[in-house]
């Protein structure tokens, strides 16, 4: 697996985790931040939800952006190499 594919897969996992939190209604556990846990599990789920939310807005987009840049650089690099290896046109 290339580094780029790993980055895209990681971003996908983070986004999927965020979607799962939303679907399961786990965001409600973040009230633990205000000192009012829903139940004992909030002390784990609340910080976890916040961490995944932060990763959704930082880690995932950065990895996707990096993957796009890496791909673009790869294409540009190949073209430049191909052009430089072509014989010079005869004058």
């Amino acid at each position, binding site marked *: 697996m290339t*580094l780029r594919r790993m980055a895209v897969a990681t971003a996908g996992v983070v986004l999927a985790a965020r979607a799962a939190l939303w679907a399961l209604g786990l*965001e*409600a556990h*973040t*009230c*633990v*931040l*205000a*000192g*009012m846990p829903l139940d004992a599990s909030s002390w784990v789920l*609340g910080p976890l*939800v*916040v961490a995944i*939310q*932060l990763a959704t*807005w*930082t880690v995932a*987009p*950065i*990895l996707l*952006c*990096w993957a796009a*840049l*890496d791909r673009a*650089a790869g294409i540009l690099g190949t073209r430049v190499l191909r052009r430089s290896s072509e014989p010079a046109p005869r004058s």
Partner: protein
Amino acid sequence: MRAPRSVVLLFVATLLWLPQVQRFHHADRARLREALTERATRPRDVAAMRAVNPEWDFMRRTFTVLALGDRALSAPADARARYVAAMDREIDDVLATEAAHGKSRFLLGYGSARPFVDPEARSVFVDGEIVMMIAARELVAPRPALRAEADRRAEAIERAMRRSPTLSAESYPDECWTFCNTTALAALSMWDAATGSDHDDLGRAWVARARERLLDTRTGILVSSFTRDGVVRDGAEGSSIWMSARNLLLVDEAFARDQYARARRELSVTFLGFAWAREWPQGTPRRPDVDSGPIVPLLDASAGSSAFALLGASAFGDEAYLDGLLASAELAGFPDGAGYRASNDVGDAVLASALTHGPLWARARARRVAEVAR
């Protein structure tokens, strides 16, 4: 040595993306102001809140009344009656609740564990905020039926403060809080503006005494709590100073601005358009408690301090900081259309008061200026 292309591109991607994140987390202040004021009048879970801290049950009412008062003063005349009626419901309920359950109803358990030092044994936390609620109501529209109640409590506050060596009254037995004493002073100032009474001398004397005895030696910020004799218990704290600075605007504006500037320097953090507040200045020992709320590791962000920082930023017109705090709430507070899931009832009321702040304080100050001019 050349850095690998991947590392360079990761750096570029980070630089490109991170500054854009706050663009996706812009709070709609007008919508929040309306929604939170409504929500604050209908607490979601009072029993759960009281189980954590009965003070929050009381403070929710104070901040809700202040938000409703500000809304009433800025609303068209035909909409004002609705806000005034909601203020009356909150005030009548708090007075009835205190009458039914006793004066310890809104205090933490240790409030009745030992006797107060002051002979009248009253909590300035309760009396100050009740006078503030009634004064807010009076500034919006007179309600003569409440005047005797507020007068009685205002007189009790003044007696207790003047008897104290620090000119500060107790919130709990031998425990004075700057938050509560500045709230009481602001309440007396509002009451003066509403009724023509005069507590200016007490306010001036308190500020002079506070400058002598209640400033943190390193930061110059008012300490958070102390004994009646002035022995410091808790130093500078965000859960105290933002609100205290806002209160002091009605007592001594120059001192209030100085305190806000110091709090901003020592406690605020801003990063790429986001902002939050620490509970303690850097280098100060941490003692997380019910006031600070949980502290977010690495960021050192305190929910309690950050919520009250919204009050300060709003009162002092610190738009950049207010925008940053709201952006953080949008990112990590989980908006649900009418507020934030990561908040609670008292948090909603504090935020409502922060976003509506202005008309009440302006009216109180304008009337005071007019009185002084006369």
